[in-house]
Protein backbone atom coordinates (compact mmCIF):
# COMPACT_ATOMS: atom_id res chain seq x y z
CA UNK A 1 0.00 0.00 0.00
CA UNK A 2 1.39 3.34 -0.92
CA UNK A 3 0.47 6.42 1.00
CA UNK A 4 -0.14 9.65 -0.82
CA UNK A 5 2.08 11.89 1.32
CA UNK A 6 1.16 15.01 -0.58
CA UNK A 7 -2.42 14.62 0.55
CA UNK A 8 -1.33 15.19 4.14
CA UNK A 9 0.71 18.24 3.19
CA UNK A 10 -2.61 20.03 2.93
CA UNK A 11 -3.55 21.57 6.28
CA UNK A 12 -7.17 20.46 5.87
CA UNK A 13 -6.44 16.74 5.59
CA UNK A 14 -3.61 16.92 8.11
CA UNK A 15 -6.01 18.46 10.60
CA UNK A 16 -8.16 15.33 10.61
CA UNK A 17 -5.19 12.94 10.49
CA UNK A 18 -3.64 14.69 13.50
CA UNK A 19 -6.96 14.53 15.31
CA UNK A 20 -7.02 10.77 14.86
CA UNK A 21 -3.40 10.32 15.94
CA UNK A 22 -3.43 12.48 19.07
CA UNK A 23 -5.29 9.97 21.33
CA UNK A 24 -2.82 7.18 20.53
CA UNK A 25 0.23 9.29 21.26
CA UNK A 26 -1.35 10.72 24.41
CA UNK A 27 -2.19 7.28 25.78
CA UNK A 28 1.28 6.01 24.89
CA UNK A 29 2.83 9.03 26.63
CA UNK A 30 0.83 8.47 29.83
CA UNK A 31 1.47 4.72 29.87
CA UNK A 32 5.21 5.13 29.27
CA UNK A 33 5.37 7.89 31.85
CA UNK A 34 3.80 5.65 34.50
CA UNK A 35 6.09 2.72 33.64
CA UNK A 36 9.14 4.99 33.48
CA UNK A 37 8.42 6.68 36.80
CA UNK A 38 7.74 3.30 38.43
CA UNK A 39 11.10 1.97 37.23
CA UNK A 40 12.74 5.23 38.21
CA UNK A 41 11.39 5.33 41.74
CA UNK A 42 10.95 1.69 42.75
CA UNK A 43 12.98 -0.64 40.51
CA UNK A 44 16.18 1.31 39.90
CA UNK A 45 18.64 0.82 42.76
CA UNK A 46 19.96 3.66 44.87
CA UNK A 47 23.22 4.98 43.52
CA UNK A 48 26.00 4.27 45.99
CA UNK A 49 27.75 7.56 45.28
CA UNK A 50 24.91 9.94 44.59
CA UNK A 51 22.22 8.50 46.85
CA UNK A 52 18.59 9.09 45.98
CA UNK A 53 19.15 12.47 44.37
CA UNK A 54 20.43 10.89 41.17
CA UNK A 55 16.83 9.89 40.33
CA UNK A 56 16.30 13.34 38.84
CA UNK A 57 18.14 12.12 35.74
CA UNK A 58 14.99 10.24 34.76
CA UNK A 59 13.48 13.61 34.00
CA UNK A 60 16.64 15.57 33.31
CA UNK A 61 18.30 13.45 30.63
CA UNK A 62 15.19 12.87 28.46
CA UNK A 63 14.39 16.58 28.67
CA UNK A 64 17.92 17.52 27.60
CA UNK A 65 17.79 15.07 24.69
CA UNK A 66 14.43 16.35 23.54
CA UNK A 67 15.50 19.98 23.82
CA UNK A 68 18.33 19.49 21.35
CA UNK A 69 16.51 17.07 19.07
CA UNK A 70 13.42 19.26 18.78
CA UNK A 71 15.50 22.26 17.74
CA UNK A 72 16.92 20.28 14.81
CA UNK A 73 13.44 19.02 13.88
CA UNK A 74 12.09 22.57 14.11
CA UNK A 75 14.86 23.92 11.88
CA UNK A 76 14.26 21.04 9.46
CA UNK A 77 10.55 21.81 9.07
CA UNK A 78 11.23 25.53 8.92
CA UNK A 79 13.78 24.92 6.17
CA UNK A 80 11.37 22.67 4.25
CA UNK A 81 8.72 25.36 4.56
CA UNK A 82 11.14 27.98 3.23
CA UNK A 83 12.42 25.85 0.36
CA UNK A 84 9.18 24.30 -0.89
CA UNK A 85 6.79 26.97 0.31
CA UNK A 86 4.64 24.40 2.10
CA UNK A 87 2.48 26.08 4.68
CA UNK A 88 2.08 23.03 6.86
CA UNK A 89 5.85 22.59 7.34
CA UNK A 90 6.15 26.13 8.69
CA UNK A 91 3.17 25.57 10.96
CA UNK A 92 4.88 22.46 12.33
CA UNK A 93 8.02 24.48 13.08
CA UNK A 94 5.95 27.07 14.92
CA UNK A 95 4.19 24.29 16.83
CA UNK A 96 7.44 22.62 17.89
CA UNK A 97 9.14 25.72 19.33
CA UNK A 98 7.21 26.05 22.64
CA UNK A 99 7.59 22.34 23.45
CA UNK A 100 11.30 22.52 22.71
CA UNK A 101 11.71 25.62 24.85
CA UNK A 102 9.82 23.93 27.67
CA UNK A 103 12.12 20.89 27.60
CA UNK A 104 15.16 23.18 27.56
CA UNK A 105 13.82 24.96 30.60
CA UNK A 106 13.07 21.67 32.38
CA UNK A 107 16.57 20.41 31.60
CA UNK A 108 18.11 23.57 33.07
CA UNK A 109 15.83 23.60 36.11
CA UNK A 110 16.21 19.93 37.02
CA UNK A 111 19.93 20.28 36.36
CA UNK A 112 20.06 22.99 39.00
CA UNK A 113 18.15 20.79 41.46
CA UNK A 114 20.59 17.99 40.82
CA UNK A 115 23.57 20.30 41.01
CA UNK A 116 22.75 21.66 44.46
CA UNK A 117 23.10 18.34 46.36
CA UNK A 118 25.83 16.96 44.05
CA UNK A 119 28.08 19.91 43.37
CA UNK A 120 26.91 22.14 46.19
CA UNK A 121 25.90 24.87 43.78
CA UNK A 122 22.85 25.63 41.67
CA UNK A 123 24.83 26.64 38.63
CA UNK A 124 28.33 26.23 37.24
CA UNK A 125 29.57 27.74 34.01
CA UNK A 126 30.18 24.33 32.61
CA UNK A 127 30.28 23.90 28.85
CA UNK A 128 27.11 21.83 28.71
CA UNK A 129 25.10 24.04 31.01
CA UNK A 130 26.12 27.15 29.14
CA UNK A 131 25.30 25.73 25.73
CA UNK A 132 21.92 24.51 26.97
CA UNK A 133 21.25 28.04 28.23
CA UNK A 134 22.17 29.44 24.82
CA UNK A 135 19.84 26.91 23.20
CA UNK A 136 17.08 28.32 25.40
CA UNK A 137 17.91 31.83 24.14
CA UNK A 138 17.73 30.60 20.55
CA UNK A 139 14.25 29.15 21.14
CA UNK A 140 13.12 32.39 22.75
CA UNK A 141 14.55 34.40 19.85
CA UNK A 142 12.68 32.25 17.31
CA UNK A 143 9.39 32.55 19.17
CA UNK A 144 9.64 36.26 19.83
CA UNK A 145 10.54 36.98 16.21
CA UNK A 146 7.49 35.06 15.03
CA UNK A 147 5.33 36.74 17.64
CA UNK A 148 6.45 40.21 16.53
CA UNK A 149 5.43 39.69 12.89
CA UNK A 150 1.73 40.01 12.15
CA UNK A 151 1.74 38.56 8.65
CA UNK A 152 1.91 34.75 9.14
CA UNK A 153 3.74 34.07 5.87
CA UNK A 154 6.47 36.57 6.67
CA UNK A 155 6.64 35.20 10.22
CA UNK A 156 7.16 31.68 8.84
CA UNK A 157 9.95 32.68 6.52
CA UNK A 158 11.73 35.02 8.92
CA UNK A 159 11.53 32.36 11.61
CA UNK A 160 12.94 29.80 9.19
CA UNK A 161 16.01 31.93 8.49
CA UNK A 162 16.77 32.52 12.15
CA UNK A 163 16.18 28.82 12.94
CA UNK A 164 18.56 27.76 10.17
CA UNK A 165 21.21 30.29 11.16
CA UNK A 166 20.84 28.96 14.69
CA UNK A 167 21.23 25.34 13.65
CA UNK A 168 24.44 26.18 11.77
CA UNK A 169 25.68 28.02 14.82
CA UNK A 170 24.85 25.37 17.41
CA UNK A 171 27.96 23.24 16.77
CA UNK A 172 30.12 26.37 16.65
CA UNK A 173 28.66 27.69 19.88
CA UNK A 174 28.89 24.27 21.51
CA UNK A 175 32.56 23.81 20.71
CA UNK A 176 33.51 27.39 21.45
CA UNK A 177 31.88 27.13 24.85
CA UNK A 178 33.67 23.85 25.48
CA UNK A 179 37.05 25.30 24.55
CA UNK A 180 36.32 28.46 26.46
CA UNK A 181 35.71 26.41 29.57
CA UNK A 182 38.80 24.26 29.24
CA UNK A 183 40.96 27.26 28.44
CA UNK A 184 39.92 29.01 31.61
CA UNK A 185 39.97 26.41 34.32
CA UNK A 186 41.07 22.87 34.79
CA UNK A 187 38.60 20.05 35.18
CA UNK A 188 36.57 21.02 38.20
CA UNK A 189 33.27 19.26 37.74
CA UNK A 190 32.39 16.95 34.95
CA UNK A 191 28.81 16.25 34.08
CA UNK A 192 29.82 13.05 32.30
CA UNK A 193 28.02 10.08 33.74
CA UNK A 194 29.90 6.90 34.43
CA UNK A 195 29.17 4.51 31.61
CA UNK A 196 28.66 1.60 34.00
CA UNK A 197 25.04 2.24 34.72
CA UNK A 198 22.72 -0.32 36.24
CA UNK A 199 20.40 -1.87 33.68
CA UNK A 200 17.32 -0.73 35.56
CA UNK A 201 18.58 2.85 35.55
CA UNK A 202 19.22 2.75 31.84
CA UNK A 203 15.85 1.14 31.17
CA UNK A 204 14.07 3.77 33.25
CA UNK A 205 15.83 6.53 31.39
CA UNK A 206 15.03 5.08 27.97
CA UNK A 207 11.37 4.55 28.86
CA UNK A 208 11.16 8.11 30.12
CA UNK A 209 12.81 9.32 26.91
CA UNK A 210 10.17 7.46 24.90
CA UNK A 211 7.47 9.02 27.07
CA UNK A 212 8.95 12.44 26.34
CA UNK A 213 8.86 11.64 22.60
CA UNK A 214 5.23 10.58 22.71
CA UNK A 215 4.29 13.59 24.80
CA UNK A 216 6.09 15.91 22.37
CA UNK A 217 4.37 14.40 19.34
CA UNK A 218 0.92 14.59 20.93
CA UNK A 219 1.52 18.14 22.14
CA UNK A 220 2.93 19.33 18.81
CA UNK A 221 0.05 17.81 16.88
CA UNK A 222 -2.45 19.51 19.19
CA UNK A 223 -0.72 22.84 18.78
CA UNK A 224 -0.45 22.34 15.01
CA UNK A 225 -4.21 21.75 14.90
CA UNK A 226 -4.97 25.01 16.66
CA UNK A 227 -2.51 26.86 14.42
CA UNK A 228 -4.19 25.35 11.34
CA UNK A 229 -7.62 26.41 12.58
CA UNK A 230 -6.41 29.91 13.34
CA UNK A 231 -4.72 30.39 9.98
CA UNK A 232 -7.44 28.73 7.90
CA UNK A 233 -10.38 30.30 9.68
CA UNK A 234 -11.59 32.00 6.50
CA UNK A 235 -11.64 28.82 4.42
CA UNK A 236 -14.68 26.80 3.51
CA UNK A 237 -13.68 23.62 5.32
CA UNK A 238 -13.26 25.36 8.65
CA UNK A 239 -16.63 27.02 8.21
CA UNK A 240 -18.07 23.57 7.50
CA UNK A 241 -16.39 22.22 10.62
CA UNK A 242 -17.99 24.98 12.63
CA UNK A 243 -21.40 24.10 11.19
CA UNK A 244 -20.87 20.45 12.10
CA UNK A 245 -20.05 21.03 15.74
CA UNK A 246 -22.82 23.53 16.26
Amino acid at each position, binding site marked *: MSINWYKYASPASFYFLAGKMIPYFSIAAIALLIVGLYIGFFVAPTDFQQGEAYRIIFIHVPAAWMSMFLYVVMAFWAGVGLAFNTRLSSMMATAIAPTGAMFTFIALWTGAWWGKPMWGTWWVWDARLTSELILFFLYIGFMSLQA*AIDDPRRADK*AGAIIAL*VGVVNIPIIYFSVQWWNTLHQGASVSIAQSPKMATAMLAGMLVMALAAWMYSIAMILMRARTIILERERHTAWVAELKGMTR
Partner: protein
Amino acid sequence: MLTWVIRRDLLLAMRRQADVLTTLFFFIIVVSLFPLGVGPEMNTLRIMAPGIVWVAALLASMLSLGRMFSNDYLDGTLEQILLSPTSLSLLVLGKMLSHWLITGVPLVLMAPVLGIQYDLPFSALVVLTLSLLLGTPILSLIGAIGAALTLGLRGGGVLVSLLVLPLYIPVLIFGAGAVEASTAGLGFEAHFSLLGAFLLASLVFAPWATAASLRISME
Protein backbone atom coordinates in the same frame (compact mmCIF):
# COMPACT_ATOMS: atom_id res chain seq x y z
CA MET B 1 28.74 48.64 -7.23
CA LEU B 2 30.29 47.57 -3.94
CA THR B 3 32.31 50.77 -3.69
CA TRP B 4 29.27 52.80 -4.70
CA VAL B 5 27.25 51.46 -1.76
CA ILE B 6 30.12 51.97 0.66
CA ARG B 7 30.79 55.51 -0.56
CA ARG B 8 27.13 56.42 -0.33
CA ASP B 9 26.72 55.06 3.19
CA LEU B 10 29.91 56.75 4.37
CA LEU B 11 28.75 60.03 2.88
CA LEU B 12 25.40 59.72 4.62
CA ALA B 13 27.16 58.91 7.88
CA MET B 14 29.42 61.94 7.52
CA ARG B 15 26.34 64.13 7.09
CA ARG B 16 25.08 62.81 10.42
CA GLN B 17 28.23 62.60 12.47
CA ALA B 18 26.30 62.62 15.72
CA ASP B 19 25.04 59.09 15.05
CA VAL B 20 28.57 57.77 14.65
CA LEU B 21 29.77 59.53 17.78
CA THR B 22 26.80 58.28 19.82
CA THR B 23 27.84 54.67 19.26
CA LEU B 24 31.43 55.44 20.16
CA PHE B 25 30.46 57.27 23.34
CA PHE B 26 28.09 54.48 24.30
CA PHE B 27 31.07 52.12 24.07
CA ILE B 28 33.22 54.41 26.22
CA ILE B 29 30.51 54.91 28.85
CA VAL B 30 29.76 51.20 29.20
CA VAL B 31 33.45 50.40 29.66
CA SER B 32 33.78 53.22 32.21
CA LEU B 33 30.81 52.01 34.22
CA PHE B 34 32.40 48.72 35.23
CA PRO B 35 35.08 50.15 37.57
CA LEU B 36 32.31 52.15 39.26
CA GLY B 37 30.29 48.99 39.78
CA VAL B 38 33.06 46.54 40.60
CA GLY B 39 35.37 48.88 42.49
CA PRO B 40 38.68 50.43 41.50
CA GLU B 41 40.83 47.44 42.46
CA MET B 42 43.39 47.38 39.63
CA ASN B 43 44.21 43.67 39.89
CA THR B 44 40.57 42.70 39.41
CA LEU B 45 40.07 45.20 36.63
CA ARG B 46 43.11 44.00 34.73
CA ILE B 47 41.66 40.48 34.63
CA MET B 48 38.23 41.69 33.60
CA ALA B 49 39.36 44.25 31.02
CA PRO B 50 39.28 42.09 27.83
CA GLY B 51 35.84 40.74 28.63
CA ILE B 52 34.45 44.17 29.49
CA VAL B 53 35.81 45.84 26.36
CA TRP B 54 34.51 42.99 24.20
CA VAL B 55 31.04 42.95 25.75
CA ALA B 56 30.81 46.70 25.35
CA ALA B 57 31.89 46.39 21.70
CA LEU B 58 29.21 43.73 21.16
CA LEU B 59 26.52 45.96 22.64
CA ALA B 60 27.67 49.07 20.78
CA SER B 61 27.78 47.25 17.46
CA MET B 62 24.37 45.69 18.11
CA LEU B 63 22.70 48.96 19.07
CA SER B 64 23.74 50.57 15.81
CA LEU B 65 22.35 47.68 13.71
CA GLY B 66 18.97 49.35 13.47
CA ARG B 67 20.44 52.07 11.30
CA MET B 68 21.88 49.66 8.75
CA PHE B 69 18.68 49.31 6.73
CA SER B 70 15.95 51.34 8.43
CA ASN B 71 16.67 54.73 6.82
CA ASP B 72 16.83 53.17 3.36
CA TYR B 73 13.66 51.27 4.15
CA LEU B 74 11.80 54.38 5.21
CA ASP B 75 12.74 56.54 2.20
CA GLY B 76 12.25 53.76 -0.35
CA THR B 77 15.90 53.35 -1.34
CA LEU B 78 15.86 49.75 -0.19
CA GLU B 79 13.06 48.90 -2.59
CA GLN B 80 15.12 50.34 -5.45
CA ILE B 81 18.15 48.35 -4.29
CA LEU B 82 16.05 45.17 -4.34
CA LEU B 83 14.86 45.96 -7.84
CA SER B 84 18.32 46.64 -9.23
CA PRO B 85 19.85 44.02 -11.54
CA THR B 86 23.04 43.86 -9.46
CA SER B 87 23.31 40.94 -7.07
CA LEU B 88 21.56 41.84 -3.82
CA SER B 89 24.14 39.92 -1.80
CA LEU B 90 26.87 42.16 -3.17
CA LEU B 91 24.98 45.35 -2.34
CA VAL B 92 24.22 44.01 1.12
CA LEU B 93 27.90 43.20 1.60
CA GLY B 94 28.61 46.86 0.83
CA LYS B 95 26.18 47.94 3.52
CA MET B 96 27.78 45.53 6.01
CA LEU B 97 31.27 46.83 5.26
CA SER B 98 30.19 50.43 5.60
CA HIS B 99 28.46 49.59 8.89
CA TRP B 100 31.76 48.18 10.07
CA LEU B 101 33.71 51.23 8.87
CA ILE B 102 31.27 53.55 10.64
CA THR B 103 30.82 51.69 13.95
CA GLY B 104 33.48 48.98 14.13
CA VAL B 105 36.62 50.90 13.22
CA PRO B 106 36.09 53.71 15.79
CA LEU B 107 35.69 51.05 18.48
CA VAL B 108 38.93 49.39 17.40
CA LEU B 109 40.76 52.73 17.50
CA MET B 110 39.33 53.60 20.91
CA ALA B 111 40.03 50.22 22.53
CA PRO B 112 43.74 50.78 23.36
CA VAL B 113 42.92 54.00 25.23
CA LEU B 114 40.32 52.19 27.31
CA GLY B 115 42.76 49.33 27.82
CA ILE B 116 45.26 51.77 29.31
CA GLN B 117 42.60 52.88 31.79
CA TYR B 118 42.42 49.27 32.88
CA ASP B 119 46.22 49.11 33.20
CA LEU B 120 46.69 46.45 30.53
CA PRO B 121 50.33 45.79 29.57
CA PHE B 122 51.42 46.93 26.11
CA SER B 123 51.43 43.43 24.57
CA ALA B 124 47.86 42.83 25.77
CA LEU B 125 46.79 46.16 24.28
CA VAL B 126 48.13 45.11 20.90
CA VAL B 127 46.35 41.74 21.07
CA LEU B 128 43.12 43.40 22.23
CA THR B 129 43.17 45.85 19.34
CA LEU B 130 43.98 43.17 16.80
CA SER B 131 41.28 40.85 18.13
CA LEU B 132 38.73 43.65 17.81
CA LEU B 133 39.99 44.38 14.32
CA LEU B 134 39.35 40.75 13.36
CA GLY B 135 36.17 40.36 15.37
CA THR B 136 34.11 43.51 14.83
CA PRO B 137 33.53 42.82 11.10
CA ILE B 138 31.93 39.50 12.13
CA LEU B 139 29.56 41.42 14.39
CA SER B 140 28.46 43.63 11.48
CA LEU B 141 28.09 40.63 9.18
CA ILE B 142 26.02 38.45 11.51
CA GLY B 143 24.12 41.40 12.91
CA ALA B 144 22.92 42.36 9.44
CA ILE B 145 20.83 39.15 9.32
CA GLY B 146 19.03 40.20 12.49
CA ALA B 147 18.64 43.77 11.26
CA ALA B 148 17.13 42.57 7.98
CA LEU B 149 14.71 40.17 9.70
CA THR B 150 13.40 42.77 12.15
CA LEU B 151 13.05 45.51 9.53
CA GLY B 152 9.96 47.60 10.19
CA LEU B 153 8.76 45.51 13.14
CA ARG B 154 7.42 47.00 16.34
CA GLY B 155 10.00 46.66 19.09
CA GLY B 156 12.60 45.76 16.48
CA GLY B 157 15.48 47.16 18.53
CA VAL B 158 14.94 44.87 21.51
CA LEU B 159 14.11 41.93 19.30
CA VAL B 160 17.34 42.25 17.37
CA SER B 161 19.31 41.84 20.59
CA LEU B 162 17.49 38.58 21.36
CA LEU B 163 18.23 37.25 17.91
CA VAL B 164 21.79 38.43 17.48
CA LEU B 165 23.46 38.26 20.88
CA PRO B 166 23.38 34.43 21.17
CA LEU B 167 25.02 34.26 17.75
CA TYR B 168 27.76 36.67 18.88
CA ILE B 169 28.91 34.32 21.65
CA PRO B 170 31.73 32.55 19.74
CA VAL B 171 33.20 35.91 18.71
CA LEU B 172 33.12 37.11 22.31
CA ILE B 173 34.72 33.93 23.60
CA PHE B 174 37.63 33.92 21.18
CA GLY B 175 38.07 37.70 21.05
CA ALA B 176 38.36 38.09 24.80
CA GLY B 177 40.07 34.71 25.05
CA ALA B 178 42.92 35.83 22.79
CA VAL B 179 43.82 38.66 25.17
CA GLU B 180 43.61 36.44 28.23
CA ALA B 181 45.71 33.75 26.58
CA SER B 182 48.40 36.26 25.69
CA THR B 183 48.54 37.72 29.21
CA ALA B 184 48.70 34.19 30.61
CA GLY B 185 51.74 33.54 28.41
CA LEU B 186 49.92 31.07 26.18
CA GLY B 187 49.81 31.67 22.45
CA PHE B 188 46.94 33.69 21.07
CA GLU B 189 47.44 32.43 17.50
CA ALA B 190 44.81 29.69 17.83
CA HIS B 191 42.19 32.24 18.87
CA PHE B 192 43.10 34.48 15.97
CA SER B 193 42.91 31.57 13.54
CA LEU B 194 39.41 30.74 14.76
CA LEU B 195 38.32 34.38 14.60
CA GLY B 196 39.67 34.51 11.06
CA ALA B 197 37.75 31.35 10.20
CA PHE B 198 34.53 32.86 11.57
CA LEU B 199 35.20 36.02 9.60
CA LEU B 200 35.63 34.12 6.34
CA ALA B 201 32.62 31.88 6.96
CA SER B 202 30.34 34.80 7.81
CA LEU B 203 31.73 36.76 4.85
CA VAL B 204 30.46 33.98 2.60
CA PHE B 205 27.14 33.15 4.24
CA ALA B 206 25.95 36.32 5.95
CA PRO B 207 25.38 38.47 2.81
CA TRP B 208 23.41 35.64 1.27
CA ALA B 209 21.24 35.07 4.37
CA THR B 210 20.76 38.82 4.76
CA ALA B 211 19.66 39.19 1.14
CA ALA B 212 17.11 36.40 1.64
CA SER B 213 15.90 38.06 4.86
CA LEU B 214 15.53 41.42 3.12
CA ARG B 215 13.42 39.85 0.39
CA ILE B 216 11.18 38.27 3.02
CA SER B 217 10.86 41.52 4.95
CA MET B 218 10.06 43.57 1.84
CA GLU B 219 7.47 41.23 0.34
